[in-house]
């Protein structure tokens, strides 16, 4: 559905995207992860022809695009990191205009209002809506023309956790209904929950790509030891135990090392009366997607 081959983009002397190649298959939810400034949004903008690539090729629906044929936009829905709605216009007004822009039948407006539970808010101006309702309206607008592909650029950024979870529920429903999703995010929980495959972008290049379990397996040569409460005893002995400090802040620490070393450290901690040492929680586990991400992004 989406194919990028050796795509490059520079802004002046700054190379934002340095030869990215990836493929998003029909019906999958593909996650594009990376720190701020890694090039994720530039990739999305190039896909949508909002920015012209300097090199490489981009294909959408099997059609190579440099200047996107306007008709192709009928097959794509986009949700931006901010709602991008007309604040002074009502919810129904925004959706009616979007329907007209995409040439969708007017009946779709009532359908998506029903689908997203916007009925009680249909005649409210967007500026009077909560952030969550705005984002729901934005997603309703993105699918008003029933697109095959939905591109989501940080759709839950800035939302309260409960609202973000609600938005993720909506995205999961869209995925289950057979839509292809390209999810750009730096929220691991969201990507882990929704995406079948993931690419992590670092410095304008794809550092790793695969399914979530493939990525976790790829980094499973090390286990992570998490300590909460008083991590000082284990931090003091980290070097001696052959462990690397991944993260340390106040009352918690994460250390990584070979499985045998992590198990040894865990046994030592447990044998010394953890309660007396002020340790409230300690556990060893394989890397989560977040840990994979941190290692990829902070790695050499």
């Amino acid at each position, binding site marked *: 559905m989406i194919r990028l081959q050796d795509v490059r983009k520079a802004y002046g002397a700054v190379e934002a995207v340095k030869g990215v190649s990836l493929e998003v298959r029909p019906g999958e939810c593909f996650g594009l992860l990376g720190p701020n400034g890694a090039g994720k949004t530039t990739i999305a903008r190039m896909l949508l022809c*909002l920015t012209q690539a300097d090199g490489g090729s981009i294909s959408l629906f099997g059609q190579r695009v440099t200047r996107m044929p306007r008709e192709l936009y*009928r097959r794509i829905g986009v949700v931006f990191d*901010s709602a991008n709605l007309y604040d002074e216009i009502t919810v129904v007004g925004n959706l009616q205009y979007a329907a007209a*822009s995409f040439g969708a039948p007017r009946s779709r407006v009532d359908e998506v209002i029903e689908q997203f539970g916007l009925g009680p808010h249909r005649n409210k101006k967007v500026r009077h809506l909560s952030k969550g309702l705005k984002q729901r309206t934005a997603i309703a607008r993105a699918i008003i023309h029933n697109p095959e592909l939905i591109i989501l650029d940080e759709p839950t950024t800035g939302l309260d956790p409960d609202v973000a979870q609600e938005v993720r529920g909506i995205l999961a429903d869209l995925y289950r209904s057979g839509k292809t999703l390209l999810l750009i995010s730096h929220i691991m929980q969201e990507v882990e929950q929704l995406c079948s495959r993931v690419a992590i972008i670092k410095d304008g290049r794809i550092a790793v790509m695969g399914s979530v379990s493939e990525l976790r397996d790829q980094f499973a040569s090390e286990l992570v030891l998490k300590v909460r409460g008083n991590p000082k005893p284990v931090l003091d002995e980290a070097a001696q135990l052959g462990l690397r400090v991944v993260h340390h802040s106040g009352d918690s620490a994460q250390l990584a090392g070979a499985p045998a070393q992590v198990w040894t450290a865990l046994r030592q901690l447990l044998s010394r009366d953890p309660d007396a040492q002020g340790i409230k929680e300690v556990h060893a586990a394989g890397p989560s997607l977040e840990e994979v991400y941190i290692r990829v992004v902070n790695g050499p």
Partner: protein
Amino acid sequence: MNIVVRSLSLEVTKVFASPTLIVLLLSPVTAAFVIFLLFPDSPSLVNLFLLFNIYIITVMNTSLSIVHERETGTLTAMAVTPLDLRLVLATKAAVSVGFSLLTTLAITYLAARNIPALIEPGRLAVVTGVALMTALLFAAVAVMISTFSATVKQVEQVGTGVIMGLLLVLMLPFDRLPDALQQALSWLPILNARFFLDAVLAPSFSPGPGQWAPIAVNLAIGLALVSAAITWFRAKFLR
């Protein structure tokens, strides 16, 4: 066609939904009403009001609307629909030009209390023609300002600067310029103020083919400038 009507109606709705824009539209007419009431013997104020009315509505309304939409992201949202961005921008310019023509007519009718000849059909047609070509020129200026202004605040600053430039042009002693330069400038939209002066103030003014030729040329120049400015904005926006 449906989408053009919808886009126009959306733009009009946005104007009426925003108190700031309503004030922007009504303030020149209200000010003109007060000034004509207080100074009935100063007809020279009429052309100034007409020019500034068109400037404020066309330049400020169009550029504020475009840059506000770019800031809030709605312009980007429109760029990923089958609509051509040029249509979206042209709609904005068209609505501002339309509003400026309506308020021009309102001011002309107010001024007609003291200069009844203003609403004679021939003279009214010339005033409308001059207002339209001026509005088109200013619409092009508005799109240019939007191209180079990153924020609404910058639009306000640049817009004020351009008003100063306009004042300077109005005060230039064209009669003292070399003949060749006067001849060349007389065909440029920059001299719209003179058309207003002739059409509004000259008691002996009689509408005729002499006025329509430069108006037609300036209308064509205005349209060309607007479409060039819109094409440039789009190219920069999608770079």
